[in-house]
C-alpha cells in the first residue's frame, strides 16, 4: 500500500514525464502540494467545502423552518439557548435555521456572478489582446471606463432601475465586476500572442476564433480563476450590502444582509439577531480570501509572499 503510494509519487514528481498527461498531472500535483503546505489556504478550502455541505444539506441540518413565522407570543426575540442556538428573530423564527438556509442564497449569488462575469471578461480580454489595433483600443477603453466607476453605487443604480430582487442584484454585480478579468485575460493574451506555438497553429490555418478559444483561453483560465476566487469575498460583501439596503433578496427570504438589516432595529437590546448573519458573512468571505491567497501562491510561486 505504502509502496504503491510511493511509486505514484515518483511517477507524479518525475523529472522526465513520458506523456502529456503525466506532465499535466505532475504539475497539478506540485501545485497541490504547495497549496496543501499552506495551513491557512487549507482552512479556506475547509470553510468553502463546509459552506457547500451546509447548503446541500440545509433541510437536514436546520432544526426549524427558515421562513414560517414562529409563535409571536412565546418565541419572539429569544436569546441564544439550547433550543435556539443563535436565538430567534422578531417573527419568532429560529436564526440558526435562517443562517443555514441563507448559505444557499450566498452560494447562488457567488456561482451566478462567477458564471456570468468571468466568461464575459475572458472573452473581451482575449479578443482585445489577440486582435490588437482599434478593436483592442475600443474594448479596453470601455473596460477602463467601467473600472473607473464606483462599483457599489453603480450596482445600486442598476438595481434601482431593474427593481429589487436577488436575480437583479446578481445581474448588477456581474455587470460591474467583469472588467478586472478582461484586463487579466488581455495581459496574458499579449504574452501568448506571438508565442511560436500560436504562430504554428496559425500557419496550419486555424481561424482566429479557433486560436482564441482552443489555444489562448485555456491558458488564461487559471489566472482568471485565481482572481475570481479573490473577488468572491467582495462579491459576497456587495450582495450582502444590497440586501442590507433592501435591494437584494426580499423578505422573508433568509438572505444574510437582509437579516442584518432587520436585526438593526433591535441591535441595542437583542444583539444576536444581527450578530449571527454577520459572523456567517465574515466566515465565508474569509474562507474565499484564504482560498484565493493560497491558490495564487500555489499557481504562481513567483508572486508568493507578496
Amino acid at each position, binding site marked *: 500500500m505504502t509502496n504503491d503510494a510511493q511509486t505514484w509519487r515518483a511517477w507524479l514528481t518525475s523529472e522526465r514525464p513520458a506523456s502529456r498527461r503525466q506532465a499535466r498531472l505532475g504539475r497539478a500535483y506540485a501545485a497541490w502540494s504547495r497549496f496543501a503546505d499552506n495551513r491557512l489556504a487549507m482552512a479556506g478550502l475547509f470553510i468553502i467545502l463546509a459552506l457547500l455541505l451546509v447548503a446541500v444539506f440545509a433541510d437536514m441540518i436546520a432544526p426549524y423552518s427558515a421562513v414560517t413565522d414562529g409563535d409571536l407570543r412565546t418565541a419572539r426575540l429569544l436569546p441564544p439557548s439550547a433550543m435556539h442556538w443563535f436565538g430567534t428573530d422578531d417573527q419568532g423564527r429560529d436564526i440558526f435555521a435562517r443562517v443555514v438556509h441563507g448559505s444557499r442564497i450566498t452560494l447562488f449569488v457567488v456561482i451566478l456572478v462567477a458564471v456570468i462575469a468571468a466568461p464575459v471578461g475572458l472573452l473581451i480580454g482575449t479578443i482585445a489582446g489577440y486582435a490588437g489595433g482599434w478593436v483592442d483600443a475600443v474594448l479596453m*477603453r*470601455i473596460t*477602463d*471606463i*467601467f473600472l*473607473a*466607476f*464606483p*462599483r*457599489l*453605487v*453603480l450596482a*445600486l*443604480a*442598476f438595481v*434601482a*432601475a*431593474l*427593481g429589487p430582487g436577488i436575480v437583479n442584484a446578481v445581474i448588477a454585480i456581474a455587470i460591474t465586476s467583469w472588467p478586472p478579468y478582461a484586463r487579466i485575460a488581455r495581459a496574458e493574451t499579449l504574452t501568448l500572442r506571438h508565442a511560436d506555438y500560436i504562430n504554428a497553429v496559425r500557419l496550419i490555418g486555424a481561424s482566429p476564433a479557433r486560436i482564441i478559444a482552443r489555444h489562448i483561453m485555456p491558458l488564461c483560465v487559471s489566472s482568471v480563476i485565481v482572481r475570481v476566487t479573490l473577488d468572491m*469575498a*467582495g462579491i459576497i*460583501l456587495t450582495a*450582502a*450590502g444590497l440586501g*442590507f*439596503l*433592501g*435591494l437584494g433578496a426580499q423578505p422573508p427570504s433568509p438572505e444574510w*444582509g437582509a437579516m*442584518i438589516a432587520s*436585526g*438593526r432595529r433591535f*441591535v*441595542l437590546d437583542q*444583539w444576536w439577531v*444581527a*450578530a449571527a*448573519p*454577520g459572523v456567517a*458573512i*465574515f466566515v465565508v*468571505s*474569509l474562507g474565499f*480570501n*484564504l482560498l484565493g491567497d493560497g491558490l495564487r501562491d500555489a499557481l504562481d510561486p513567483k508572486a508568493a*509572499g*507578496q
Partner: protein
Amino acid sequence: MALAGSAGAGGRRRARLRSTAMAVARFLVVVALTYLGLLAVTFFIGRVIPVDPVLAIVGDRAPSHVVERVREELGLNLPLYQQFVIYVGKALTGDFGISVLTSNPVMTDIRRVFPATLELATLGTLIGALLGVPLGVLAAVRRGSFLDQIVRVIGLVGYSVPIFWLGLMALLVFYARLGWVEGPGRIDVVYEYTVTPVTGILLLDTAMQGEWEAFRNVFGHLILPASLLGYFSMAYISRMTRSFMLTELGQEYVVAARAKGLSERTVIWRHALRNALVPLVTVIALSYANLLEGSVLTETVFSWPGLGLYITDSLQNADMNAVLGGTIVVGSVFIGLNLLSDLLYRVLDPRTRAR
C-alpha cells in the same frame, strides 16, 4: 559651436513642451471619454427603468392629453440620441432634475449633504493612511514577525467583514454598552442651531466659531464611523504598502544605500519608502474613493446625513433623479481622484516627468 549647442537645447525644450502638451491632451480626452461613458450608463439606467417617468409625475389617472404634454415637456418624444445630447448638456451644468422627495433641484440637495460625506471619508482616509503606511512598512521590514502576522490578520478581516455589520456591532459596544462615543447622527439636536454652516464641515465650523462644546459633540459623533472607515482603509493600505516595500527592499539601490553606510532607518524610510510612495499614491486615492462609495452603507448604519444616505433614502422612495444624480456625483469624484493620482504619480516619479 556654443550657439549651435544652445539652439539644440532650445529645440529639445520645445520638443519636450510639445510632448507634454500631447500627453495632457490625450489625458483630457481619456477623462472626457470616461465621463461620457458614466453619463451614458446613467442615461441608459434612467431609460430602462420600468416606471414611466411621466406617470410618476402626473399619476395614472391623468387624461391622455395631459400625459402627452408632460411627455413633450420632458423631451421624451425626441429621438434617443437627441435626448442623450440634452441629458449630457444638462449634466455638465449640474442639472440633474428635481428630486421628487424634497422638491429641490437634485444638485442643491447634493451640495447640502456632500460636506458630511467628505468630512467622514477624509478623516477615515487620514486615519487609514497614517496608520496603514507605517504598519505596512514595518511588516515588510520584519517579514514573518509577529507584527507582520498582525498586519496580515488586519488585512484579512478588513477584506472579509461586512462594514455595515461591524458598524452596528461597534455602535452596540462603544455607544450603547460603554458609552464612550455619541450615537448615530452628526450632531445633537441641542447644538444643531448654535453653529452657522460655513464650510459644511462641522469640525471646522464649530472650531472656527469657537463653539468648543459643540465641537466636542461633533467629534464624539464622528470618531466612531471615521475609525470604522479608517480601519477598512488601513487594511487595504497596509497590505499594499507591505507588498510595494518588499519589492523595493529587494532592489539594488537599497544595497548601494547600505554600502554607503546609511542607517537602516534612512535606507527604509528615505530610500525604499520614497520609491514605494509612487504606486502608493494611487492606492491611497483609490481607498479614498472607496470610502466615499462605502459611505452608502456606513451612513445608513450611523444615520449620517451625507450623500450615501441621500442616495439610499431616494432609492427607497423610487426617486430616480436623485439616485442618478448622486451616482454621477460619486462617479465624477472617482474620475477626479483618478486624475489627481495620475498627476501626483508624475510629480513623485521623475522618470515619468519630461519624457
